[in-house]
Structure formats: C-alpha cells, structure tokens
C-alpha cells in the first residue's frame, strides 16, 4: 500500500465540496457535542448506534420506491425512539440483547434488500458509511435544524436531563417528569442521527454522538465543560477525518471514525498518565 504525499491542510478549504463537508461536520460537531454529553451521561450510547442502524433497511426500500430516504429514516429512527421509551415506561427495558438483535436484523435485512435494489455495492457503502463529499443544501439545512433543536433541547431540558441521569430513580420525587424528558432526549438523538446519516452513514453515527463526549468525559468536571470539550473534540475529529480522507482517498465517514478512535486512545493514555 502506498500513501500519497501529505496534502496541505489549507486544501480542505480549496474545493467547494470539502468546504461543504467541513461545514456539515462542524454542524454535526455542534449537535454531537450538545446531545452526546447527555447520551453518555444517560448511558444510551447503544441506543444512538442502534437508531442509526435501524434506518438502513428503510433507506434501501425508500430508494427503491423513489421515496425520500431521509423521511423514511426519520420515521424509523423516531419510531424506534418511541418504542424504546414505551418499553422503558412499561418496565421492560429492551436491554442490550434485544438491541443487538435489532442491529443484526436491520443490517442483515438491509443488505439482502439492497442486493435486489442496487446494481453496485457503492450505494450500500454510501448508506452504511456515508459520504461527506457531494453533500447538498438539503443535507446542510437538515443538520442545521438538528443543531438548533439540540441547542434548544439543552437550554430547556439540560437541567432535567442531568438530574435524571444522575439519579434516575429519584428524579420523579424531584418533580421531573423523567419519562417525558427521556422521550424528548431519545427523539432529539434520533433526529440528529438521521441528520448525520449522509455524512457518516448508518453504521458510524456513534463517531459523532458518543466518541467526542466519551473523550470529554475523561476530563470534564461539570456538564457544561463536558459539552464544551465535546463540541471542540467533535470539530477537531471532523476536520482530522476529512484531512485523512483527502490524504488517503477514502470515504470521510470511516476516516472520521478512525480519527475519533485514535483521539480516544490518546486521551485515555493522557488521562491515565495524570
């Protein structure tokens, strides 16, 4: 394997497509930093991952039916969020095993459907791993809406989310309607996951919504710091991933995920050394 020579980082701003990709990843960094903090604190990282994967078969079918894949994905992700909240309210936490089963079924079913729908595997790759190059205005608008909703959610519900995550059993006695605030968090995460699909794909949404917050969690002493560090890490991870993608000529989604994983390893080593 031969590596190309290192590109100039300024090249990221040269091309319109990479500028748009950088802007998209910055919007996702904002959303991921804001919601990721509560995804990690509320321990719903597996939900964030599953919500992305659950959209895969729906996106395949929607493409075959010339229906909007985004609308189909949104319906599936929000439906999944509602199902998880309902199960939790009924005292039947779906649990990791059920979530794992959903992941396998969604992934396997999606691939089988895709084999009949698509003539080439590149479309499947795009649905699973995204492509930040070639994003359109609608993608940016959807991501901006997700960022705005995430910001609004944190301003209005951040205190309640923190209290519920800190003491889930005691939250009702504090006067916090934990079921409703949980549903709001799950719905916002589901919406944000759908916004991230074009850039990072159904399989790599955790790179945006879990990894930066998990890195920030190693150092943050308050929820505000957790959010601030998470946004910063997500932005750096996005830029680094895009740069890797440009250098190695690979899709940006996996490159962003690798950058995040490398960042976590470095942060964990740094934390252990303190």
């Amino acid at each position, binding site marked *: 394997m031969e590596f190309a020579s290192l590109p100039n980082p300024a090249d990221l701003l040269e091309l319109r497509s990479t500028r748009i990709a950088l802007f998209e990843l910055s919007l996702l960094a904002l959303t991921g930093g804001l919601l990721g903090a509560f995804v990690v604190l509320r321990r719903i990282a597996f939900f964030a991952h599953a919500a992305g994967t659950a959209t895969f078969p729906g996106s395949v079918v929607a493409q075959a039916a010339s229906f909007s894949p985004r609308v189909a994905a949104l319906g599936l992700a929000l439906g999944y969020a509602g199902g998880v909240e309902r199960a939790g309210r009924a005292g039947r936490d779906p649990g990791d095993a059920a979530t794992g089963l959903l992941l396998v079924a969604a992934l396997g079913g999606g691939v089988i459907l895709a084999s009949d729908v698509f003539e080439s595997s590149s479309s499947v790759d795009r649905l699973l791993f995204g492509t930040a190059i070639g994003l359109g205005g609608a993608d940016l608008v959807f991501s901006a809406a997700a960022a705005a909703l995430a910001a609004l959610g944190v301003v209005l519900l951040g205190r309640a989310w923190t209290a519920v*995550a800190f003491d889930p059993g005691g939250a009702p*006695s504090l006067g916090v309607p934990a079921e409703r605030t949980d549903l709001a968090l799950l719905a916002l995460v589901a919406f944000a996951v759908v916004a991230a699909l074009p850039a990072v794909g159904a399989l790599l949404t955790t790179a945006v919504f879990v990894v930066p917050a998990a890195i920030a969690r190693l150092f943050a002493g308050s929820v505000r710091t957790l959010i601030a560090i998470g946004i910063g890490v997500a932005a750096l991870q996005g830029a680094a991933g895009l740069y890797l993608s440009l250098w190695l000529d690979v899709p940006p989604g996996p490159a962003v995920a690798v950058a995040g994983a490398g960042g976590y390893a470095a942060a964990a080593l740094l934390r252990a050394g303190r």
Partner: protein
Amino acid sequence: MSTVAAHGLSVGYGSEPVLTEVEFEAGAGTTVCVLGPNGGGKTTLFRALTGDLEPIAGSVDVAARPAYVAQTERARLDFPVSALDVALMGALGSGRWWLPARRSDREAALEALERVGLGAQANTRFGELSGGQRQRVSIARALVAASPVLLLDEPLGGIDPASAASITALFSELRDEGRTLLVSTHDVESARGFDLVLCINRRQVAFGPPAEVLGREVLEQTYGSEIVVLSGDGEPLRAIAVQHHEH
C-alpha cells in the same frame, strides 16, 4: 391533622405485595423512624409515599410531594457534578424544570449546603466527598425542594460520626420548623430518639411512641432471628439488629 398517612396499604412490584397492612398517621412537626430489617419493605414504603409505586390495596395520603433522600450508595460517583449542582436539583420541583436555574434557586442551594455544614465544599465534585458528606448534600437537595415532608432512606448508614451527629441535629431543627420526617433505619438504638416508630417486616408490626413500641416482642417480630436483645428487667435495654448482607 396528619401530613403523611397510610390506610390499609399493601404495596409491591407487579401484583405481588411485599409490604402489607400498613396503617399510620403522622402530623406536622413529627419525626417517624421506619424500623425494619433489610428487605423488610422500608424503601418500598417510601416509593409508595412518593407515588413511584401504586398501592395494590389501601391508600397513602401525603400533604405535598415529599422530598426523598435515597441511599447514597446508589449515587454515581464519577458523575461530573459539584455539591452545589446536586443541591440545585432540588429546585427542579418548583415547576420550572424546563428553564435554567434562577439566582434565587442558587442562593437557596448555597443556603441549604451551609445548613448541612458543607458551604465550603459547594464547588467540590460530588464523587470526591465522603459518604457522610454526600448524604448531607442529598439532604441539602431535599431542603431546597422545600417540601413539608421528607423521606430519608437509611441516612445514617455507614457514615462518619461527625456527619451522623450533624444529620441527627438537623432532624430536630426540621421537626421544630414543622416538617414531617420519615427516616428509615435498621438501627434499633437510633429509633429511640424519634417521636414515633413504625416497625415493619413485610407487614406492619407496630406503630407508636418508642417507649411503647420498642419492646422485646415487637423487636423479635420485626427482626425475627436477626436480633439480639440484651434485656434488663423484662424490657430490652439494648437491641442489636444483626444484618446479613449478600456478597
């Protein structure tokens, strides 16, 4: 007039009751010790009083939403919150949980921390405090909620003597302010300092003033074989509950 009452209460998980025949009333400015062994139904009773569990039979009547102080061993010590952040959570019950905290909420939280002797630790991370200090922060959170009824689940369990003394003194202050306190414990000796004692072991065994309730027969029914009674002239001078913990 009672501020907390249970009438013919049976409560449990699903349709299976784990606590039955609960019948008591407590008025304003009263401290009630809920005494019983581990697994006897103390936390279940509190969950019924907070409305977290629906009665299977009977009813509970609480004058206002009670402030609940859970056992601190349940707390997540790695959580990125300070003592002040935790105390501020008590202000969420004011009906403005969807908005940022007000200055007055912050002042109330600081005042509550001062009251439990932790004003200087307001900005210390919750997980870095000792067990007793964490318990006091949880009580501060309940104070910020400003409820006339406080439910405290094993607040004196496994904490340092200084914190225990501070918390016990606070109970008297809160009673003098007219609040009703229900405090669960399995420590028979500490029960003697309360106005009333409610003995439970999957059912109500007895309820009344300590002098009437804390006799050998009631204690033996409450704790079964888990008690050693060191008696004087027919009445227990000292009773020690032997708690078995699963490992």
